[in-house]
């Protein structure tokens, strides 16, 4: 608008001069050129109430961008809206957010995150619109290579991504949890607020608690695990494939059992009793005997349906497939999924390596009898609105029917969600004192994958692993209540006051010291894999230019952010895989002595930007400044 207006005013002002002087051609040549305006970029993030850390990273970057002459704006929206814009609508310039997986993830997660084949899709698959053939090749090769070659490909891949910066990794946060251990025990192991962490907790009956004089008060009450969060989405939506409503998918993965659950030391057979390689390219999965929450039996057909449905939620009704905005990398691994009999499923995975193949089994299994009716394209009052969205993706799924260890009982929007233990779940029937359970493998059947690429050190014994003792006979809570509180400080307060057993959502550095001041509250922190990052919409100029992104990346002082914003409760990082240090090549590891990024070192010192250096870098990359020191944009 301003551009047109200014041109018009120039035209009006020069009209008379043109008519009299007669140099029409020259004037047309001048005013016919579009003038450049200052570059405007918006940084989208969450308000401090929802995430005390993200907004600080956003402010850090915004401030530095302003110093560099960019008209940088900050915009805060709610959690669902942030994901809706960045993942579903691609309607953003720059966002600051977290990776969706909190527990250290398989390196193949990068496949869907940055592969160009997903650039046109909506969801966690390539929200940046990043397209780079060399990266695509490496992503493909790491899927099929054997362990050693795969390491090399992954190293090369990380180097390429660090160089090209479709996103800038900032830091891996410490997931800080405030908890009290008088009613539940077992918070110290691993990620206490992940599905695995919550499932392994042990309830302490009132008579066994020490120092409890009012123990008889809740003697008759069911064993209720009470958690607080600032994230109210769990009180409104229980759709496991609605990406904008999911954070780490903790409760979804407890409502909907996956075939295989990722555990600290490798994949754990879950809904699958076990799996074996039928031949070099086929995995055969044996299902446990299980029922859906509504009493229907869970069969191999449900599993086969799930994979087909996740790849096209319209089941062929739409012109082009409508895939889910989540689990996309995993559903592209198997070529076909076939039900052999009632409890056996075969996955044809082609030439992918074992680690990647097993990752394909980590998706929630959905009941066919519920979801097959949700394939029509969305409409409001019969008018089709969107060719690319199905009912399945927009349904709040308010009566979730899964097969997992919990069921939804009741929910009040923005207030609380109440779950109950699924008394038919297989975990409850397992004997916790089974001596054989701790062994890695109890039967002698080998599930070695036929073919010569085996024996390279991959853990191929996972298929027959038994459920560890910690999960046997669990969950030991009968009810699980998630209560929404307005801020991290209020969440800690709830735990301190004995109104909750633990906090679920992020706790900012200002709330952390409060945990220590509360008499009965304790603190546990685990390095989360859900790294904070700055995502660039590379569909938009000038963010499409890797040189421009490289200069932006060099304006982020990761070490200073960790010190100031996170108060040390985070680790700065260069690579997305820093949560699995073994996969990160030496030169991409964070070096505290160097104190800055290895690939795009911070241009400045101690959080202070060296403005001249940044401006020089922009000029070198081909960008121009006007007399007022504003960075100009031609293509915006």
């Amino acid at each position: 608008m301003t551009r047109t207006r200014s041109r018009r005013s120039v035209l009006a002002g020069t009209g008379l001069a043109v008519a009299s002087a007669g140099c029409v051609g020259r004037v047309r040549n001048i005013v016919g050129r579009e003038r450049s305006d200052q570059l405007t970029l918006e940084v989208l993030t969450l308000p401090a109430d929802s995430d005390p850390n993200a907004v600080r990273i956003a402010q850090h970057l915004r401030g530095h961008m302003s110093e560099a002459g960019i008209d940088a704006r900050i915009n805060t929206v709610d959690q669902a809206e942030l994901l809706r814009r960045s993942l579903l609508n691609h309607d953003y310039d720059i966002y600051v957010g977290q990776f969706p997986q909190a527990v250290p993830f398989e390196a193949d997660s990068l496949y869907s995150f940055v592969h160009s084949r997903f650039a046109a899709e909506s969801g966690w698959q390539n929200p940046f619109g990043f397209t780079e053939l060399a990266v695509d090749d490496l992503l493909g090769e790491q899927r099929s290579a054997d362990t050693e070659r795969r390491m090399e490909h992954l190293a090369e891949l990380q180097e390429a991504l660090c160089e090209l910066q479709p996103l800038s990794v900032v830091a891996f946060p410490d997931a800080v949890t405030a908890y009290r251990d008088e009613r539940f025990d077992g918070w110290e192991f691993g990620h206490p607020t992940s599905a695995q962490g919550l499932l392994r907790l042990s309830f302490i009956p009132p008579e066994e608690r020490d120092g409890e004089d009012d123990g008889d008060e809740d003697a008759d009450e069911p064993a209720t695990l009470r958690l607080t969060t600032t994230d109210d989405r769990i009180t409104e939506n229980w759709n496991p494939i609605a990406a904008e409503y999911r954070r780490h998918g903790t409760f979804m993965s407890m409502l909907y059992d996956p075939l295989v659950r990722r555990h600290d030391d490798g994949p754990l057979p879950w809904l699958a009793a076990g799996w074996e390689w039928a031949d070099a390219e086929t995995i055969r999965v044996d299902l446990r005997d299980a029922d859906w929450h509504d009493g229907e039996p869970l069969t191999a057909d449900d599993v086969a349906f799930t994979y087909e449905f996740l790849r096209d939620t319209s089941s062929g009704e739409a012109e082009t497939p409508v895939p889910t905005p989540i689990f996309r990398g995993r559903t592209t691994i198997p070529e076909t999924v076939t039900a052999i009999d009632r409890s056996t499923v075969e996955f044809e995975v082609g030439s992918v390596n074992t680690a990647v193949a097993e990752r394909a089994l980590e998706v929630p299994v959905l009941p066919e009898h519920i979801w097959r009716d949700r394939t029509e394209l969305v409409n409001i009052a019969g008018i089709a609105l969107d060719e690319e969205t199905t009912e399945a993706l927009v349904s709040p799924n308010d009566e979730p029917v899964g097969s997992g260890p919990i069921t939804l009982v009741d929910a009040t929007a923005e207030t609380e969600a109440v779950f109950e233990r699924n008394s038919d779940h297989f975990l409850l029937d397992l004997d916790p004192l089974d001596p054989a359970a701790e062994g890695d493998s109890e039967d002698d059947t080998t599930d070695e994958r036929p073919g010569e690429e085996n024996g390279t050190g991959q853990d191929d014994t996972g298929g027959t692993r038994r459920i560890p003792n910690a999960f046997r006979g669990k969950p030991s809570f009968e009810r699980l209540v998630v209560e929404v509180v307005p801020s991290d400080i209020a969440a800690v307060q709830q735990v301190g006051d004995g109104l909750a057993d633990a906090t679920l959502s992020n706790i900012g550095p200002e709330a952390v010291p409060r945990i220590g001041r509360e008499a009965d509250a304790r603190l546990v922190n685990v390095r989360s894999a859900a790294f904070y990052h700055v995502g660039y919409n590379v569909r938009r100029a000038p963010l499409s230019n890797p040189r421009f992104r490289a200069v932006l990346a060099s304006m982020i002082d990761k070490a200073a952010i960790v010190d100031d914003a996170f108060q040390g409760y985070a680790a700065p990082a260069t690579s997305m895989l820093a949560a699995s240090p073994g996969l990160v090549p030496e030169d991409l590891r964070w070096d505290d002595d160097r104190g800055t990024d290895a690939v795009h070192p911070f241009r400045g010192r101690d959080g202070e930007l060296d403005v001249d250096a940044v401006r020089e870098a922009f000029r070198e990359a081909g960008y121009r400044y006007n007399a007022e020191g504003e960075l100009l944009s031609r293509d915006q």
Partner: protein
Amino acid sequence: MSVLLSVILRLIFWVGVMCFIAGIALIGPRRLYEVAHEVVPILRDAKVPIAGLLVVLVASAVGRGALQTLSELVGFELTGAIFALEGNFVGWIQANFVTTEATIYFSWIYIYGYVFLLVFPFIAYAALPKTTMFKRLIVAYALNYAIGLVIYTLVFAHGPRNLDVATSLLYSFNPDFQALTSEVNENTNVFPSLHTSLAVTAGVFGILTRREYPIWVWLSVWLAVSVMISTMYLGIHWLIDVIAGIGLALACVYLSYRLIEDEDGAREPDDRPDELAAEPTDGAAVAGDGGD
């Protein structure tokens, strides 16, 4: 929920005590006693404004969630624009003027002082011989809420504490208060500051009734100014929200005078300010839609 309940009970207790003391001191025990027996006729006389206020309050309580969703979908996102316009003003206030005493004072003002400032005029104006001011006060409150609700829906913005421009001093000092404020408000309802507009409304009414309650003028203006500062000091509102709140308050007082005419001019309890009386009439109808 017990946190919320205890906060509410504390609030009711302290505001009750303050109203009682102020009532004895400013209205006088005898008149106060009389008013207690005239409650029904006074309320009946003001039934239309009261109904209007109740409608607005109920609509706010019931429709807030839906309006919030609407605001997310179609509202103007002004967080960035407000911040770009005024910058670190609120952060500057906190950087330069924060002391423990001031934080305790302004936290107290934000919750207790504010509620007392809004509630006491009900009693004070009910005790006047005529109900005109009583009705005007109710109409002005209702208009504040109604217009505020409309603007909240149109404007989607977070406050300075949510942008890390300022520290959330109120909730760091008194986490319990957030249980209350989150019940009655969304964290995206910052523009305009209704705290400011309602407090300024009560303050302006205090000035307009200076003849009846000469001491209340000073008390109400002091409280209103304190509330205004507290919203920024505590990191909840932007300066722009506060300015908009003042504007809204003046508009609502003006409109309340347009809507509630004095019944008989002879014994008008106060002199209508010239600048208010001289305003042209357009605009009254628009806001009247929202208020009644």
